[in-house]
């Protein structure tokens, strides 16, 4: 399977047909399929790299994973099926967009919870503040004496 695939890909490379692929040897013949592969690749982490997607990595393992994704797509899998397949093999660590479940709801919810808490805090503070009276800050002793000095000086031009 992979042999035929590489030969097709090589043929393509030789014919210099414009197409999108990470390495000329990896690309799929069908541009629609290839685009799906690219999109999926950007969501998958290169496991041996440091925080890079397999789409942008030169590592051999990233290449293997790119080819795996393309093989699954060629075999007729849907995007979800490909992701499920990859996760079953490599675990959720491979997903750059973590799934929403019991362990990650707080991660996904945090921005909205924080914003909500912030809005409530601001509203409460403003409401309380409106009922407070404004007290002008008083000057310290040093400042009072300096003010006096300035006032006195300016009186005698």
């Amino acid at each position, binding site marked *: 399977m992979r042999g035929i695939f590489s030969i097709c890909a090589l043929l393509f490379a030789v014919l*210099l047909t414009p197409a*999108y692929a990470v390495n000329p040897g990896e690309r799929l013949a069908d541009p629609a399929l290839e685009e799906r592969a690219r999109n999926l690749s950007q969501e998958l982490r290169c496991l041996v790299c440091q925080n890079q997607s397999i789409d942008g990595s030169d590592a051999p393992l990233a290449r293997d994973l790119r080819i795996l994704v393309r093989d699954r797509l060629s075999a007729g899998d849907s995007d979800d099926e490909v992701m499920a397949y990859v996760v079953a093999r490599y675990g959720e*660590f491979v997903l*750059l967009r973590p799934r929403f479940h019991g362990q990650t709801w707080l*991660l996904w919810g*945090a921005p909205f919870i924080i914003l909500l808490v912030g809005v409530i805090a601001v509203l409460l503070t403003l409401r309380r503040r409106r009922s407070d009276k*404004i007290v002008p800050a008083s000057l310290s002793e040093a400042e009072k004496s300096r003010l006096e000095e300035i006032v006195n000086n300016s009186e005698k031009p």
Partner: protein
Amino acid sequence: MITELGHFALVLALGVALIQALGPLVGMYVNPGFGRIAVPAARVQFVLLLISFGALVYSFAVSDFSLALVVANSHSAKPMLFKLAGAWGNHEGSMLLWALILATFGAAVAFFGRNLPDGLRARVLGVQGLIGVAFLLFLLFTSNPFLRLDPAPFDGNGLNPILQDPALAFHPPFLYGGYVGFSIAFSFAVAALLEGRVDPAWARWVRPWTLAAWCSLTLGIAMGSWWAYYELGWGGWWFWDPVENASLMPWLLGTALLHSAIVVEKRGALKRWTLLLAIFTFALSLVGTFLVRSGVLTSVHAFAVDPARGVAILIILIFFVGGALTLYALRAPALKVEGLFAPVSREAALIINNLLLTTATATVFVGTLYPLALDAMDGSKISVGPPFYNLTFVPIVIPLLLLVPFGPMLGWKRADVLGAAQRLGAAALVAVVALGAAWAWQNDGPIGAPFGIAIGAWLIVGAFSEIAYRVRLFRGASLKEAATKAMRLPRSAWGTTLAHAGVGVMVIGIVGISAWRVEAIEALALGSKMEVGGYTLTLRDVESFAGPNFQADRAEVLVERGNREIAVLTPEKRIYSVSSMPTTEAAIYTIWIADLYVVLGDEAGNGTWTFRAYVNPLVPWVWIGAVIMVIGGMISLSDRRYRVGAPVLAKVAKPKTQNVDAPA
């Protein structure tokens, strides 16, 4: 000998920092006069650290391989610039640079802060000294840069080749200028809490320091991003890498601090919140240091991974942040609440700004640390990558960007939304036109992209609308009158406008590269051609050559558009002799509204080479926007009101000049 001098100066600096801390923080309670020692101590500490750092740089310059640090991070065949930059391109040296910048800020407060009340200045310097003590202890006990090696080897191990780059040589100093600069805001906050007084004058003293730190951090981050763009070889400019996030968090919160301090300065409101922001901004700078140096995160920056150091930084972090927050809890309730304002007012706008910036910071914080927390709790491993931030961070930032032009248009205390909206009519019009133009121009790009361009246009025109409004342009004033008025506007007004417009320019750049990037990857034989985004690339030659400390293959690629020759690009692939690590040197041809980005890949067999070529629309605007923001910050910094020594000078100057102030 020079090395010992540097080492000795470092130890002395620790002693002086201790005096600088104890004099004001303890001594003042015995005798107020003891606080005065902080000023000379801050100066002496600065000079000592300058000597120490100078000694380290000298050792790198002459390749003194009896020094363990030089052996580990340098090589005699390196170009001089990278020998020097190697002094701070490693954990120990960069911590020494950190301590030096900390002392520089302290010395600057001692030198320029003559107009500060004696007590406040002494306490600020005391807190600064205490931070210095912590980091100098950290340096001497866990990360001493001056350790010798016996016997000395003949040559060193070299600097990581991807770090041998001019932009990266200066990236750390600017980044630390930002991180460490926020320590001044922190010291001011703690000093204010100790004194129990926060007033507009306090905010006025804090703002220039915060602004200076912010400018430095902005520039540092931009340099790092630019480096990643041209050096890592696939044209990404931001990766949501944990270490990038570590610098983004203090930047976001520092931006919030800049804005909330305006409210304290002008209206005396938001005091407690501003204190908290000052504390947390520096806390996040420390968190950043911790994340990068403890090895708890996997990242491209993984240098100096040592758990013991991580624990030490964690202790420093807990001591300072915990201490400051305890002080806050004790003292803040006593601060008087001032400054009433209506729900629609500039105060309210700045509160929304702070709310959104803080939420954005918290989102990055959670995204960066959640995987660590989860791993620690039940061992399950997840990744949080760019798709997460696109779905969370971006929706928070968009309303913030939309609201930016409104802020300066609203009056203090009570404002008129309709009036502000009217003044922004031109900006709205331009935004709609930009939306239409981008929509018509793009064939099948993402639907969001034209809206992004519209937001950028809205920000740029909206920023300048404020100036136009203030000089009454098109509203009765002739062009000449308006120009004269515009020249007389306070510099801080121009600073605000430029910084906000810079954000708009950056947004346009980000949208351009994210939405409309064109890519082509081909295996080329000599003489064959490839197409990318309207350009024709012809491979003319591939040759091998030897650089000063690397072997390289260099391709010669002719770029044509239509039948017109545009450029000859020479992308390279290098292998550094010492580390045998391959790097790519992308060739970039920029026309300022787009980059043509060509990378030479591996040999693909049959005399062909893999080439990756990208057309990256608008990407230079990302960094141009950042530079405009920094220029705006610096112009604002040069405003008479913030010139730190201004009141002293004003005594001699004509009294009239004192009142050049922004109409609030």
